């Protein structure tokens, strides 16, 4: 819209412009825009309430307002989260995130347990070297066979039992 119309647009829309600026008759762009604004202004003016609307208000309005104020109490920071749509969205998103983290933790723990069980059931044959102190000779434990360890512990128990009976 050109400046000469823009500067007087409120007067044109209010109908207080004594005569329509000459420019409007010559400029299609400005006249189209002004027509659109006039139509919208007419629609906005329809939001006026009827003159007699306030006349039949129910008495005791102030008392009802005070009841409401007492019921609501002061606005706390939590109300913003509980009552507003944004707060509810944050709560839902937090719950969803907590759920995802929970699922992740449970499934990863289960996988770790399964891996441990698999390792335990396997016969472990590892070579380990323990060095005890600087001067101590290196002790080498080679090929610790789990089944052999079990058998030897069973033998030890039997030997203890026999010794006990003999006593």
């Amino acid at each position, binding site marked *: 819209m050109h400046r000469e119309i823009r500067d007087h647009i409120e007067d044109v829309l209010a109908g207080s412009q004594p005569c329509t600026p000459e420019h409007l008759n010559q400029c299609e762009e400005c006249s189209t825009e002004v027509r659109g604004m006039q139509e919208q202004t007419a*629609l906005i*003016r*329809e939001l*006026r309430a009827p003159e007699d609307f306030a006349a039949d*208000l129910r008495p005791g309005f102030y008392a*009802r307002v005070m009841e409401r104020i007492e019921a609501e109490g002061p606005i706390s920071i939590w109300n913003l989260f509980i009552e507003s749509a944004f707060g509810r969205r944050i709560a839902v998103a937090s719950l969803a995130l907590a759920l995802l983290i929970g699922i992740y933790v449970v499934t990863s723990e289960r996988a770790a347990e399964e891996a441990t069980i698999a390792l335990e059931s396997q016969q472990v044959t590892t070579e380990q070297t323990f060095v005890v102190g600087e001067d101590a000779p290196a002790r080498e434990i080679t090929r610790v066979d789990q089944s052999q360890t079990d058998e030897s512990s069973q033998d030890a128990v039997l030997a203890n039992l026999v010794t006990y009976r003999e006593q």
Partner: protein
Amino acid sequence: MDHKTSEEAALVRRVQARDEMAFREVVERYQSKVFSIIFGILRNRNDAEDIAQQVFAKVYFSIKNFDFRSSLLTWIYKITVNECYDYLRKKRVRKLVYESDFSQEDAQRMEASEPAVDASVPADTRLAQRDLILKLLSKVSEEERSLILLKEVEGHSVEELAGMTGLNENTIKVKLFRTRQKLLRAAGRLTRTR
């Protein structure tokens, strides 16, 4: 206009100090105005009182933040319009008035009490037009919405608006013009998507 030294400012300060008599005076002074703003926008008598109560509850709790830059009426007007738009959002009202909450009494009143409305336009067309303009007004900022409603619905002049808001007349004119342009663009977008 200095909003800090007026009689209204003294009243506001008393409300800020939690003087209940002063708050009662504010409610009684502005309740008719608030009701008519709400009914003008929503045309729903059943919910008008509920929203009006909510408006004054907000006034009570928020008045300590009132900074005297505008008049009390301008501030209450803004709260009222925002409450109406909150109501529309909550109810997800696409059509402004449904049969369920638009009573026969309201319909008759609407038909009878709007001399400015062209009687040749059918009621459902008028309702659709109201729905459209409310949608368009939801596309501009709270300040722009209040300003154009104060101008066109309440009938205040640019000079009066300058006094009420504490802005100068040129700023008001520029803000109104930009709002009108935004509304036109929003209408254009809405028409293209339909």
